[in-house]
């Protein structure tokens, strides 16, 4: 049996708004600041253990995404599973926390259990294209 090597993505961003507003915007399909908005097809039930499914059209292909809401703690934390063509059938896990920092909110996003291979990196021209860009950036005179 082979085991897929996985990796985590971690990102942080300070948003100039209260945590409750940012939390709601992150999970409102009618606000164009989250993956659920602008979907070609959307099934979305914001409840613990409920499911979502959305389809985005990208690069001439329909990309179906599926997940389940595991934690909904307004306005501090949301956690949901995430499956797409780029997770290779793995159930990856997205965790987003919202921490009040004065008048702003620190949004911390972790996307865990992503396949760490060429297929997982194949989006938007892919791994090789970005390695080339990296090489170009570092080449003498760049």
């Amino acid at each position, binding site marked *: 049996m082979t085991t897929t090597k996985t990796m985590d*993505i971690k990102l942080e961003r300070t948003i100039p708004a209260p945590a409750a507003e940012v939390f709601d915007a992150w999970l409102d399909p009618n606000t164009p600041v989250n993956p659920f908005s602008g979907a070609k097809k959307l099934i979305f039930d914001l409840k613990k253990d409920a499911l979502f499914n959305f389809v985005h059209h990208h690069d001439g292909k329909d990309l179906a995404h599926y997940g389940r809401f595991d934690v909904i703690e307004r306005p501090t934390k949301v956690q949901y599973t995430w499956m797409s063509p780029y997770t290779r059938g793995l159930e990856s896990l997205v965790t987003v926390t919202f921490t009040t920092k004065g008048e702003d909110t620190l949004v911390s996003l972790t996307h865990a259990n992503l396949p760490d291979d060429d297929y997982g990196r194949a989006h938007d021209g892919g791994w090789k294209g970005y390695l080339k860009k990296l090489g170009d950036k570092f080449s003498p005179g760049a």
Partner: protein
Amino acid sequence: MDQLSPVLDAISHPSRRAILARLSKGPARVTEIAAPFTMSLNAVSKHLKVLEAAGLVHRDRQGRDHVMELRAEPLRQVTQWLHPYERYWSRQLNRLEDHFTTKKKRRTR
């Protein structure tokens, strides 16, 4: 400020990548690191300071000796940056930030 830019800047210079390659074999004194290079000790020190500022190198002062040690963890940020989902979520967070920045500007007008 993002943490990735200093790392990318640090590894953009071939001499600094050569220093990292040397340190991947184990900690070394500044003079030992400088030995294979034709550049001055001062120039090597400047490169080490850039690597140190990016968190790629740790300096341990042992009396008059400065022993440098590789800290490879920040290189993982480069791997993350290459991943499609890093770019995907970055775009989502940009949209979130733009949305609220515009909203705030409208409120303060």
